């Protein structure tokens, strides 16, 4: 039987920045990949870069998971930067106000640089 695409996530480190590489659709079924991965980050992480390069589809439930991740990061005084979103989803993130709490970047270098600034 057909199942929604499973979201994958892996974490790379660049100093105190954790790069969370998401892959697949981000929907209500992605809670473990998005929030579970965030919760597993090491305590010394000071900034989180979310990699959307391999995310073809997000819906509003998936965006809500990103909001929850940013909320948790705010509580822990961690900054969040986003990269690799298509222009359409950059627009959607801006429409829902996420750019007030995170920054959007075309590539990884810009996102990591913003977190180190």
């Amino acid at each position, binding site marked *: 039987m057909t199942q929604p695409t499973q979201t994958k996530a892996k974490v790379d480190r660049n100093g105190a920045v954790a790069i969370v590489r998401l892959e697949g659709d981000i929907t209500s079924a992605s809670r473990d990949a998005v929030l579970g991965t965030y919760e597993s980050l090491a305590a010394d992480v000071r900034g989180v870069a979310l990699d959307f390069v391999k995310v073809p589809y997000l819906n*509003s439930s998936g965006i809500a998971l990103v909001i929850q991740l940013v*909320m948790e990061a705010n509580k822990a005084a961690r900054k969040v930067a986003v990269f690799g979103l298509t222009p359409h989803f950059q627009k959607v993130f801006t429409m829902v106000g996420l750019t007030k709490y995170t920054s959007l970047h075309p590539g990884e270098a810009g996102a990591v640089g913003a977190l180190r600034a």
Partner: protein
Amino acid sequence: MTGTQITTELRLPSRLGFEKVAMNTAASVAQLMGFSEDRVNDLKTAVSEACINAIEHGNQLDEALTVLVILAMDDNTLEVKVVDRGSGVRKTIMAPDIDRKMHGDEEARGMGMFLIQALVDEAEWVKKRVGSYARLAIHLDRDKVQDQD
């Protein structure tokens, strides 16, 4: 809608994930009509959100119920109706308040209808005697105006 109308219909099971079938079909029709890539992407998100609402809230994820998606195109307009068996939308559509969401005073979810309304030229939610539907429409002449901006 004006001129000769061509209609395409889909019946989706009330299972999350199948909204992408409607989303991709709507995108194909919009591309055939000549809408720009930006407008096609806007429509894809709006149709996806309307179908998710129909599957989750209208049909309560009951796979015995189908979501009917009717795509009607003419020379200028693509209209999409997403029909479910629910009692329709009662709440007022509000723009998400990101500050309230960040402070836990507003649910992180609940942005679908806002996105639909913001991304298409027309959006309405209609209650029928049995069931309800969301009606979305985009117009080619507005697409051309946006291209000139």
